[in-house]
Every structure is written in C-alpha cells, then in structure tokens.
C-alpha cells in the first residue's frame, strides 16, 4: 500500500525559487499567501478532481441507467412510442416467469454456459502447464494461443457458422471421413448448442491459459523441489502443488467466465443467421442475452426487456453466491 501520507502543507520552497511556492514563512506578501492558499487547495482537491471523470461517466452511463432499467421494468414501454409509458407494477416480471420462452432461454444459457466454460478452463489449465516449461520461442507460442482473442465475436461466429455448415462444412466433412453421419448443426438442439459453445471455447481458451500461466509463475520453486524430494511424480506435483496454489486464480476465472456466459449474445445471434435473435427456428439456442434483444428491439417491448435485464442480474447474483459457497466448502475440505 501507499506510504506517502499527505504532504506537508507548508513545505519550504527552495531559495530564490521561481515556481509558485507555498511557504508559511512568507505570509507577509499577499501574492504568496494567495499562492499558498491555492497550493493547499490544490493538494486537498486534486485527488477528487482526478477520480471525478471516471465517476461522472460511470454515474451517467452506468449507475443511472442501471436504476432507470429497474424503473422501466415496471412500465409498459414500447419502441414505437418512447414518450409513453404506463405503470404496470410487476406485470412484466410475472409475464416473463409464465413464459416458456423465458425458461427456455434460461435453460439454454445454463447448458451452453456449462459446456463452454468447463472444457475451456480445463484445457486452459493444461496449456498453461505446458507453457510453463522452459520453451524455445515462448513468446511466439503465447501470441499464437492468444490470436483467437483478437478475433471479434462477429468474425469468429461467421467463420464457425461456415465450418459447421450442413453442405460443404469442414466439420461435417471431417466427421464424415471417419464414418459418422453429418449433423445438422443449426437445427438440432444439442448440435447447435455445441457449435455455439465451440466459438466461445475457441476465443477464450488461450486468454485463460495466460491468466493461469501468470499465476503458475508466481508459485515458489521450492515447493516443487521439496515435492520431488518426497518422490512426487510430475502429475502428483501438478495435482498437489500447482492446483492448490492456483485456487484463487481458478476461482477468479470461473467467476469471470460465468459472468461472460450469462451474457452470451453475439455468438448465438450470428450463428442463427436470419433467425438469429430467436436463437434458431425452435429457439433451440436462444440465450437470455438474445431473449432480451429479441423482446426489446425486434418485438419492441422495452419495458419487458428491462425486466429480463434485472432477472439476469438476479441470476448472476445467485451464481455468485453458489460460487462463493463452493469456494468456502473447498477451503474447509482442504
């Protein structure tokens, strides 16, 4: 933490200093007293001035909209008539909780979240372990692993849509060459969810591997030395030294990935093509994020979309609570 406390407000200036100086001893001169007051004011106020832009922008574009969304969720508010809003109370929420499409979207968000997050983090852990060896061209490997991170949601989704195409798609061709029947990746329920997840996995695995690598490099070397003296194999070292030391980082990535999964939007939207906002003809991969967009900007029910947004926050808080509980349980079991 920072050691410097407030600077002495009456710091004596250097002799013959031309800079505006704050000196208690020069109180006689009116300019100097004015300067000293200005200086003191500068010391006191400048920290607030420095943090102000962030909080002003955040207040205007983050906090205020957050609360306003809550207010809007209690009203009928249509895209076609933005100036007219009618009080509904909790009707938007009760309608949502009775809607099959809402529960479908919640379920899809959950399953796609699981099948994209779990393999992503597991593989990232393995890659990080390999990158942690002394490697030739280590930077090159890292940059190559991170290249998908530079690809936008839109570009990546368009490419994967083509890779998973029914006719001429790379994936069907590859599984066909080992004798598996082609899969209709867009229409089938599990197939489309798998395809959408693969976009997420591809884009974020390298990124998470780098986060794990950073944490692995902070593990004291001694721990491995004493483990190998005790006769632990490499796998046992990984399991009993690396993983426990990485637990806080793993929890961090789980939380961040979960937040990302809850908001999943661009990948299914583009994967769906013309029926994107519906998440496919049967809503088979419509996520909560898509559902919000569909309600708000395709169907024009902005009040309802606001209610979806608040329910998303509730879901996130619930998941965070579960994460916390699991983390605590794990720590106790240790």
């Amino acid at each position, binding site marked *: 933490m920072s*050691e*410097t406390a407030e*600077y002495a407000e009456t*710091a004596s*200036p250097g002799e013959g200093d031309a800079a*505006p*100086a704050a000196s208690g001893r020069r109180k006689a001169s009116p300019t100097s007293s004015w300067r000293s007051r200005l200086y003191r004011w500068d010391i006191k106020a400048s*920290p*607030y001035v420095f943090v102000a*832009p*962030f*909080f002003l*922008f955040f207040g205007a574009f983050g*906090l205020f*909209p957050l609360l*306003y*969304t809550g207010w809007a969720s209690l009203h009928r508010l249509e895209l076609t008539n*933005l100036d007219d809003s009618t009080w509904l109370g909790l009707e938007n929420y009760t309608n949502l909780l009775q809607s099959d499409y809402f529960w479908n979207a919640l379920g899809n968000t959950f399953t796609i979240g699981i099948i994209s997050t779990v393999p992503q983090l597991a593989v990232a852990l393995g890659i990080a372990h390999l990158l942690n*060896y002394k*490697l030739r061209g280590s930077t090159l490997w890292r*940059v*190559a692993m*991170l*290249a*998908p*991170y530079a*690809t*936008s*949601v*839109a*570009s*990546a989704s368009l*490419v994967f*849509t*083509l890779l998973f*195409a029914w*006719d001429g798609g*790379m994936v069907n061709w590859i599984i066909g060459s080992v004798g598996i029947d082609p899969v209709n990746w867009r229409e089938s329920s599990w197939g489309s969810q798998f395809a959408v997840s693969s976009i997420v996995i591809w884009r974020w695995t390298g*990124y998470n591997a780098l986060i794990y690598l*950073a*944490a692995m*490099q*902070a593990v*004291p*070397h001694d721990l*491995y030395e004493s483990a190998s003296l005790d006769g632990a194999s490499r796998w046992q070292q990984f399991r009993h030294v690396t993983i426990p030391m990485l637990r806080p980082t793993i929890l961090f990535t789980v939380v*961040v990935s979960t937040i990302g999964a809850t*908001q999943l*939007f661009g990948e299914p939207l583009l994967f769906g*093509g013309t029926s*994107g906002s519906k998440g496919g003809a049967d809503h088979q991969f419509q996520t909560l*994020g898509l559902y*919000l967009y569909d309600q708000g*900007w395709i169907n024009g029910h902005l009040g309802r*979309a606001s209610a979806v*947004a608040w329910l*998303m*926050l509730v879901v*996130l808080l619930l998941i*965070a609570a579960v994460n916390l509980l699991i983390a605590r349980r794990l720590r106790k079991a240790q």
Partner: protein
Amino acid sequence: MKSRTPGLTPARPLGLKAGRTMHAGPVTYVVLALFTAVSLAPLIWTAIAASRTSGRLAQTPPPLWFGGNLFKNLERAWTEASLGDAMLNTTIVAGSITIGTVLFSTIAGFAFAKLKFKFSGLLLLLTIGTMMVPPQLSVVPLYLWIADLQWTNQLQAVILPTFVSAFGVFFMRQFLLQALPSELIEAARMDGASSLRIIWHVVFPAARPAMAVLGLLTFVMAWNDFLWPIIALNQSNPTVQVALNSLGTGYIPDRAVIMAGALLGTLPLLLAFILFGKQIVSGIMQGAVKG
C-alpha cells in the same frame, strides 16, 4: 518470461525462485503445436474461404488451399457491405475510447495509488464493483437517452458510454503503486509543483509502459464491442461488428464475400498482434478482465 511491469500477481519473495525451470520435452512441443494449429486454423481458413467462390464453398470437400478470388471478394465486402466506411468508423470509435480510457484511468489510478483522500478506499471498492454490472442492465435507458438526443446512428452514442473503464483505473493503480516512487512526487511537491505539473512531468513518464498496454487492450475490446453498437447504430453508419452482423443475416448471401468481410474485420487487430503481441500478452498476464 519475466514481465517488466509489476502487476496483479502476488509479489515474489526476494531470493525465492518462482516458477518451474524444467525444460520442455518433445511431447510438450507436439501437444503445443497441436493446440496452436487449432487456434490458428480457423483464421487461416477464413483467408482460404475468402479467396474462393461461394459455389466452391458449398461443395464437399471444403477447399484447403487458396483460390484466386481474394481481391475480388475483399473489394465486394469493402464496397457492397460498406466495410470500408465501417472500418473508418470503428477506428474513430476505438481510438477515442482508447484515449479517454488511458487518460482518465491514469490520473484516477494515480490518485488511488499515491494520494490520500477521504473515502478513497470506499471509492476504489465502488470502482471495482462496477466491473460486475452486466452491460445489458443499461442498454434500455441508454437507448431512450440517445433517441431523445437524436444520437441514434451517431458515433458519439457508442463512444461516450465506454469512455472510461473501471478495469483501467484498477490496472493503472496496481501499476503505479509499485512503479512510481513516492519520493519522486514528494520532491516535486517540495519544488512547489502543482498537481497538474506532477501528472504531466512525473506520473505520465512513469506510467508510459502500462499506458501502452492498457491502450492496446482497450483498443482490442472497443474494436470488438458488439451489443451496444448493434442497438445504437444501424446499417447506414455501422461499426465493423454491426456491418458484419448484417452480412451474416443475409444482406449479401455470398459465403465467400462474408468470409472476406470476417477477414477484413479481424485484419487490423491481427496486425496489432503481430507488432505488439508480446506487450498484449504481458498485459493480459498482469490480470486483464474479460470485456
């Protein structure tokens, strides 16, 4: 690799060697090469598909090597899908957001790292807390707002809501805590320097490496931002992502042109990766947060 800049990873105790120094065996190289292939193949295949014709892309087996239509497809994506305009727009948007984020993060990060003021702990906690709020929670009011201001389809509607970043503030604070000696500020104060002079002559020079990394990360994030631009802009004045979305929803049903668009939309960032890959990697290893 040792990152030159201290970051979020816990400080290593002096004299204690961290990390493993074991050399990689051939198996490690083979497995890594496999993963690298998986991570690069879709990118390379985008270029292959962009150099073919739509008809060829519908046939089995899919093409595995380049064809002769790359420039024709790129040109069509550039003009017909207005990706040229979109790229200019995105450059303006991502550039402005990067400047705002780096500037405001540096001064706020400096205040949090080196200045004592009332409520600083609470304000920092609030800053970090804001990272947890999903963007979906503000899109409806923001939309009402820009509709009211008649900003729909105008770039400032996309720039202003992401002009500052909580992650940026935290990132700069962590860096300046260690990289900026407090004695330096004290000495400047002794000389009677005002806070603005200190920012300019002491903080900015010391923060430069972290400002560069934060700038790169912010640019990548802003270039790829999707949800809000799709709501705030439409095809008449799109960012690259908005233009790509309309490509994908059948605006131009030519697969090869779509792939040319996907390639164009990623190319600037891939170039940045080739030039600054090392810095981006070390920036993320210092603890980046998914945007």
